[in-house]
């Protein structure tokens, strides 16, 4: 029973589930697009204003749509007893949680990147800004998936998991929000934003190293 075995088995299983339950990845995507249409309706469709708030709006919408599906990430395996089996067998839960997070990103992060050209139309972004949006989403959405997996694991057996998850995870998102929207803003002024990308990459590396361990701990204590 190695990390690689458990990772492979879980990842294959999650891909099958993604293919079977399309609502799991279609709904967050629709949610993302709808939120983006709400902003022009709410603050007024002045092109300059939209361009100015675009970086923040995109990133807040991305954050909310990833959070939307986060609660369900481990819930089903917990209710069905699959997690209980893995914990009783002392399986390497790091492999399991990495597979879950990777599949979760394929379901909730990747679609956002694919539809991001649409944002350029909606919010009047320049090509440079759009490139920055795509690059920050590439680095940032895996980080979102990691953090929301941590929130989901911590609140797994809690009575009111969903809202609690948002409460405890949102403060942790703040650095990501700051650097990602700053990068897009810099890009829209035609400035260099490599520094922000480097910081995002560094945060992703730290999270990738530490979050699976915390998720493993959180899953164990919720099952016990």
């Amino acid at each position, binding site marked *: *029973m*190695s990390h690689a*075995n*458990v990772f*492979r*088995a*879980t990842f*294959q*299983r999650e891909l*099958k*589930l993604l293919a*079977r*339950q399309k609502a799991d990845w279609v709904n967050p995507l629709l949610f993302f697009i709808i939120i983006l249409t709400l902003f022009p309706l709410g603050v007024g469709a002045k092109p300059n204003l939209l361009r100015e708030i675009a970086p923040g709006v995109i990133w807040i919408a991305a954050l909310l749509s990833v959070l939307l599906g986060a609660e369900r990430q481990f819930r*089903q*395996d917990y*209710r*069905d*007893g*699959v997690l*209980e*089996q*893995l*914990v*009783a*067998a*002392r*399986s390497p839960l790091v492999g399991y949680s990495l597979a879950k997070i990777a599949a979760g990103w394929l379901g909730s992060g990747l679609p956002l990147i694919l539809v991001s050209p649409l944002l350029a139309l909606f919010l009047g972004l320049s090509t440079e800004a759009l490139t920055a949006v795509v690059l920050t989403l590439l680095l940032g959405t895996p980080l979102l998936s990691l953090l929301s997996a941590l929130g989901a694991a911590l609140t797994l057996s809690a009575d009111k998991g969903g809202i609690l998850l948002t409460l405890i995870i949102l403060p942790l998102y703040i650095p990501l929000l700051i650097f990602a929207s700053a990068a897009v803003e810099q890009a829209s002024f035609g400035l260099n934003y490599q520094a922000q990308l480097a910081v995002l990459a560094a945060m992703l590396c730290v999270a990738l190293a530490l979050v699976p361990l915390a998720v493993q701990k959180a899953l164990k204590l919720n*099952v*016990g």
Partner: protein
Amino acid sequence: MLLSARQLSCIRQDRVLFEQLDLQLHAGEVLQIAGKNGAGKSSLLRILAGLVDPEDGEICYQQQPLSHSADDYADNLCFIGHLAGVQPQLTALENLAFWRACFALAPADDWALLAQLGLAGLEDIPCQQLSAGQQRRVSLARLWLTTAQIWILDEPFTALDQGAIAALTRRIAAHCEAGGAVLLTSHQPVEVPGHVVRQLTLEYRW
């Protein structure tokens, strides 16, 4: 002696379920934990399976305290709780394949195994469309896959029909003959052909 517990106690929501409980499980033996609803049977099994830490006391696997032998013990343990451990959107075959891949078990004929459990023709239907008893059988199919010596089963006979109960008791008997040991809870009397079923009764306490 495969498994032993000394002076176990368990407290749930400020209620003492049991205190200073001693228990031994030898190879080739079936031990049934009996007791009323809420007497702490499931809690005891979860503690013995290493899922929960006891409030007090010590569990030993082959005379070694669990703090030293947890990994060996887990490799040699098959725990089936009252949750099925079956992913409802996947088929029975896919569920078995997942367990096989996770635990790196040798491939074998899953179709024949499922047919033996009376699930012929239902192999590739998502498990959520099966009845409770059929889902239970998918879950118990793991007992035919596992190489573990110690089985801990929480209410394995629930929702099963006569045929399935007979198949399960035969499997338990074969397991004991091969030197395994079974610890189970059940509200019905358990009879395993050729083996004495030892009973341990938990008193309900307020």
